[in-house]
């Protein structure tokens, strides 16, 4: 434990516990340190950090733990090493749909994949320990900065001009000389030369034989501004877990359809999706013949529901709020909601047909009638015939027992089963299955299923003008992120701080002349090369020629 009397300097200044160099004259306080002749450790000007207390409590101990730069570096190293591990195999979230990740990793990557999954590395970046590490780095950023910036601010606010000889001559850039003639005049002219180099020069009042020249002090605040930016950034990321702040889902909209965006009051209509490919002339040889997409675009309209929104029995009332063409780098944006072009599907999808009913015995044609794939009318009257819709399959298939079933709710292979009544047919109707798509008609042998009824009547579409289909389906990514503005503010702070701290350096020169003996010492937090050449070129202006390299007093260059 440090005792109180150790902290009082011979110059009469009372320093706080943990001070290395007297806050006033700069003399090393520790006896061992005072005896040595090694260059001084000038970090934070040798002031006591907030964490250096004589009787630490629990909170102080936690504070001390996070205030250590060593701990901060360990945290950084652990974070990047674990981040590396997370890139060995694809993360789970790179799959849009992965029902059974455990077996996926084992089957694709063997025993290593299984271990990878069991260790939780398949979702490294969402894991509690990784997020925990980020939170700890954030805490360390806050505490390290506070611990140092306040004492440093105090130390730089009130600096004494005449420093102790030990302080000056144990800097890493030092110059000693004998001055002939008037010391005051020499100091004044050297101060003048430093002013021309952009230094703020303070002469000791009264004597005029000591000076402090300082430049770019603001760069010392760079790292702290950078840290504030990083803290804001981390907070913004954590804020995204607040409900309603972030959304990330996908919707698929066939041409002409209107689809509700789940979890919102918005509906999106895709009027048309178009894709343009590079022609062979535009492609280099090895890519010729491949379909390389040049541009894809969804003509979209965004609607907002204004009434009947949550009543499933009533048709919602929609109001158009925005119309835009969505391309890859151009999302549709509306009040923080963003719709990005994500993918597309060029499989055409049937929407509706207008078939006719042909009486094969007479050659008479009835119709056409409107038959949408979804929500078709249950009864159609065509001349003497009546069609009652009994069943409707979206993707028709026969199950293992030979019974008809549907594989999905998308009209990939639609089929309609009607009960047909009319002249020459059974009183209570005869069943007739109708496949609107030619490929299904052949595949499932429509005429064989319908047996002798197929010889009497036929339902068919005459001409493409009676077919309505969507050529493409667009897949859009729906996103919302309310933390984004804070994130960018954090990034700007961080960048400004980095630039301040990296491209300018805080430089200080102290000098005193006692009986014609000049002692000059200088300190900078970076770029000693520049520091030394500043001293030397100012000396040269007043007629003293020194090689900048000889000013080097050894010691470590931060």
């Amino acid at each position, binding site marked *: 434990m440090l005792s109180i009397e150790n902290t009082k300097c011979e110059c009469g200044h009372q320093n706080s516990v943990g001070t290395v160099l007297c806050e006033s004259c700069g003399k090393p306080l520790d006896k061992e340190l005072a005896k040595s002749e090694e260059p001084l450790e000038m970090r934070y000007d040798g002031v006591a950090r907030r964490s250096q207390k004589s009787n630490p409590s629990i909170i102080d101990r936690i504070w001390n733990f996070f205030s250590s730069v060593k701990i901060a*570096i360990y945290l950084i190293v652990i974070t990047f090493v674990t981040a590396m591990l997370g890139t060995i195999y694809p993360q789970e*979230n790179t799959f849009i749909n992965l029902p059974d990740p455990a077996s996926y990793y084992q089957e694709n990557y063997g025993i290593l994949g299984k271990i990878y999954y069991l260790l939780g590395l398949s979702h490294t970046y969402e894991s509690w320990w990784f997020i925990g590490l980020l939170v700890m780095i954030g805490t360390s950023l806050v505490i390290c900065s506070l611990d140092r910036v306040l004492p440093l601010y105090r130390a730089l606010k009130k600096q004494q001009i005449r420093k102790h000889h030990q302080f000056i001559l144990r800097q890493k850039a030092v110059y000693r000389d004998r001055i002939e003639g008037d010391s005051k005049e020499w100091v004044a002219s050297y101060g003048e030369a430093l002013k021309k180099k952009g230094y703020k020069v303070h002469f000791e009042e009264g004597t005029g034989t000591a000076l402090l020249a300082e430049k770019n002090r603001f760069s010392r605040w760079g790292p702290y501004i950078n840290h504030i930016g990083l803290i804001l950034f981390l907070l913004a990321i954590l804020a995204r877990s607040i409900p309603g702040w972030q959304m990330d889902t996908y919707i698929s909209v066939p041409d002409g359809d209107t689809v509700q965006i789940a979890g919102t009051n918005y509906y999106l209509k895709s009027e048309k999706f178009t894709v343009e490919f590079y022609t062979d002339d535009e492609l280099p040889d090895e890519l010729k013949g491949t379909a390389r997409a040049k541009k894809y675009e969804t003509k979209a309209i965004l609607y907002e529901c204004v009434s009947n929104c949550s009543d499933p029995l009533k048709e919602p009332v929609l109001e158009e709020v925005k119309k835009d063409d969505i391309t890859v*780098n151009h999302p549709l944006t509306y009040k923080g909601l963003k719709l990005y072009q994500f993918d597309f599907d060029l499989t055409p999808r049937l929407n509706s047909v207008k078939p006719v009913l042909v009486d094969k015995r007479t050659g008479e044609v009835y119709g056409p009638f409107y038959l949408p794939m979804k929500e078709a009318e249950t009864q159609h009257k065509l001349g003497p015939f009546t069609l009652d819709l009994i069943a409707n399959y979206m993707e028709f298939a026969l199950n293992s027992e030979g019974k008809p079933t549907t594989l999905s709710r998308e009209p990939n292979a639609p089929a309609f089963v009607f009960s047909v009544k009319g002249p020459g047919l059974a009183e209570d109707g005869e069943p007739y299955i109708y496949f609107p798509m030619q490929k299904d008609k052949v595949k499932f042998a429509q005429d064989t299923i319908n047996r002798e009824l197929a010889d009497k009547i036929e339902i068919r579409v005459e001409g493409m003008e009676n077919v309505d289909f969507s050529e493409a389906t667009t897949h859009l990514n729906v996103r919302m992120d309310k933390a984004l503005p804070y994130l960018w503010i954090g990034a700007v702070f961080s960048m400004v701080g980095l630039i301040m701290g990296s491209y300018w350096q805080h430089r200080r020169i102290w000098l005193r002349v006692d009986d014609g003996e000049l002692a000059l010492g200088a300190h900078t937090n970076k770029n000693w*090369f520049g520091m030394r050449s500043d001293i030397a070129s100012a000396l040269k202006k007043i007629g003293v020629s020194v090689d900048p390299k000889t000013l080097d007093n050894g010691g470590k260059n931060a």
Partner: protein
Amino acid sequence: MNLVDFSGDAFLVAFFLYCFGFLFYVIAIAGKKWGNREPEEHVRRWSKIAFVVSSAGLAAHLTFFFTRWAGSGQIPTSNMYEFMTFLAMAIMIAYTIVYAMYRKPLLGVFALPLTIIIVAYASVFPSEVQPLIPALESIWLKVHVTTAALGEAFFAVGFAAGLMYLLRVVNFTEKTKSARRQQFWVEFTLGTILVIVGFIIVVFSFRAAGYEATFTQENVTIDSKGQQQTRVETVNYYMPPIVKPYNSQVESYESFLGMDKPLFEAPSWMNGVNAGRKFNTVIWSILSGLVLYGLLRLISRKPLGAVIHPALEGIDPDDLDEISYRAIVIGFPVFTLGALIFAMIWAEKAWGRFWGWDPKEVWALITWLYYSAYLHFRLSRGWQGLRSAWLAVIGFVIVLFTLIGVNLVIAGLHSYSGT
């Protein structure tokens, strides 16, 4: 003659000027001890000549860049060839900026070969102008890629100065355990560089000879729905296959030095795109690097580090230490802006998410965290000299992995190319 062809010529000129620049730098430091001359005057004169020649190389390189841009209508940073040539150019720019500050042209002895190797490496990849896929068309992409490369170029200069520091400082006559460890790792670093040189030599030799072998490979994958899918693919090799793709049959095979079938098969867990071929390339590179190293050792009869070490005497190690650190300090904000912030802005514009933990993004973050650890080690823990130089060397290995390794080993959104 169109602009793109012209730019190709300018590129060739740049390459030769770099080679001559390097040669003159070698003369500058190796010729000190030649007779009838003032050593300092010799170094001053020849390093000046070398600097002028390599700057002319940079001018030719800039000509290449802008004429190719004008000729193709898109900024040449979109495939591996273009990106690597840009990186090499950025290293020369970073070197010139550092030179302007410190007036130490001798740094060129290490910065130039680095540039030359990267230029040669770039030439391995197809140099045709390729049209962009829509996701890559954005002003932010251009800004992101160029700024990130410039930041990385400063890290490269930091690496060059760090390696130079190690070669200057590590004592190659000492026999203590720690000295031996240092010697080994310096030698290892030089060996690794030779492996990259070996790779380039092997690629161009077999390409000049027109070597080709073909395999058909059966690929079994299990998709996300649990369905097993089998695809049969043809795999072309342009180097004699020492190792064949996993689960494959030979289609055609030109015998090479009496080797008429692959010696073994790639293990199944190597499952990237063309993993077998890449593995084969790696084997060839290591072999040729080792042969190269062996030849150099035979000629010099001592470790390569011990050969270079005396030539660097007279260079102040503290200057090298400071230059290495300064280059990294200058590069760090540029890298932060280019590789993280601009990348996030672009990702936000293109995919609507500023960060997606894509492997390339993660590795950019790893690089950033690594260099911030470096800065904290140096500023707060006083890691300087040897330790700092080693950190600068390892850092650049991480940069290279982020740029090249991720694309070759890990697939992701950025996977544009690979040999």
